């Protein structure tokens, strides 16, 4: 048999130790068998390591009086965790005599944590966008202040106010779009690299393994999310440019042309 490292430590056993397992067979009579430890495994999930041992299917079937092909549970792994609910509903309809549970039902706290993580992601995004907005306001205010003379001239010679306003908003959009594009490119390179090597978080958060999370994170590229954030950045840029643009319009042209 193969035993989890945490369980092995708890039982203070090592390789080649003998272990007696007791269980009920298919009719409900108490039975058991002796197994020798052939290997110790360690997964990312310490809880799993502390509660699971693996034995050969044939050995177990003999002890339990199972026929070939008898199972009491089957695990179905999907490529996309978002499909879990709908797939389990489908299966439940087709297999009326079996119980079908999705991972969120089996382990609700895990599902809750994932949801919480997503919520946090949005909160962080909002905070970052806010910081970005203030950064843009600052940059564009500097742009306006640096060019008071130029803007004064534009107003003096008769450039329409909406054009001056639009000019500054457009400049902000181009600035944030360029910055956004460079940022996305850098992000892409980073995700591509880290997607291969992974980010090892085990040093900082041993708790992750208790919850069954892999401490090595492999970032993924989500085009929809990137597009969303890019649009949000441009929107933040437009919003943030309104104040500097308004400030430019408030200039007195006859004084502004003389500012040194």
């Amino acid at each position, binding site marked *: 048999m193969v035993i989890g490292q945490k369980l092995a430590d708890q039982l203070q056993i090592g390789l080649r130790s003998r272990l007696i397992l007791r269980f009920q067979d298919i009719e409900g009579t108490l039975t058991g068998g002796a197994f020798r430890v052939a290997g110790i495994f360690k997964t990312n999930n310490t809880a799993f390591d502390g509660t699971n041992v693996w034995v050969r299917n044939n050995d177990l079937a003999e002890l339990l009086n199972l026929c070939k092909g008898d199972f009491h549970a089957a695990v179905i792994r999907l490529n996309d965790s978002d499909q879990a609910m709908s797939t389990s509903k489908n299966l439940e309809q087709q297999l009326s005599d079996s119980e079908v549970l999705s991972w969120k039902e089996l382990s609700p706290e895990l599902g809750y944590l994932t949801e919480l993580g997503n919520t946090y992601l949005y909160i962080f995004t909002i905070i970052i966008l806010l910081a970005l907005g203030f950064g843009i306001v600052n940059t564009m205010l500097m742009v306006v202040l640096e060019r008071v003379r130029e803007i004064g001239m534009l107003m*003096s010679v008769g450039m*329409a106010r909406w054009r001056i306003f639009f000019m500054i908003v457009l400049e902000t959009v181009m600035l944030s779009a360029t910055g956004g594009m460079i940022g996305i490119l850098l992000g892409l390179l980073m995700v591509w690299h880290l997607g291969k090597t992974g980010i090892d978080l085990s040093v900082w958060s041993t708790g992750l393994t208790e919850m069954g999370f892999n401490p090595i994170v492999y970032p993924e590229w989500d085009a929809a999310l990137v597009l969303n954030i890019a649009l949000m950045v441009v929107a933040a840029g437009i919003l943030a440019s309104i104040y500097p643009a308004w400030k430019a319009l408030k200039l007195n042209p*006859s004084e502004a042309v003389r500012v040194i």
Partner: protein
Amino acid sequence: MAIININNLYKTYNLSQVPVHALNGINLSFDKGEFTAIVGPSGSGKTTLLNIVGGLDNPNQGQVIIDGTEVNKLTKHEKINFRLHHIGFIFQAYNLIPVLTARENIEFILELQGIPKLKRRERSTELLEAVGIPEKAKIRPRQLSGGQQQRVAVARALASRPRFILADEPTANLDSASAENLLSIMKDLNHKENTTFIFSTHDERVVKMARRIVTLEDGKIKSDNQV
């Protein structure tokens, strides 16, 4: 025939507790094709007068009538349009757009007016010749000398053939040779294009080139001489 009539103009600034009477009953008129210097010590009201004539500031009392239009009665939006189509401006600090070439700076106001590209080209070429820097068409202001920059600014002001050109201290940032050179170019264009020039100045050598000298003091006209 007068194109600008200024009637009984008063302007008071309340910057601090003591009101400053920048203009104190000005009556003036300017004819088409004039080349006029407005002189006077600082604080005499030169800039205020030019600002009000240019529709950049409003008087407390009196009126400015340009070809039958009472400028100070126009709305904000109408004033902007009026400036764009009828007045040329030259500034003390040149105020060119640093990212545009000399030619693009000259064409800028024509572009705001929506003049087609070919016509703009034609006019800017003509003006680059007139101000004597045809070889600088593709140069940006940063690489031009002060005198050259101000010549581009003169060409820009003239490009749309405005009714008149207002220049507030156009030579204040220039050395005397460039100043005289600029003035002779302005005088030349005044003659050739029959454009009215009104400029304020401190500079004696510049004053000498004017054909009419209006002297202001304490917001009043002290003298008004044809030379």
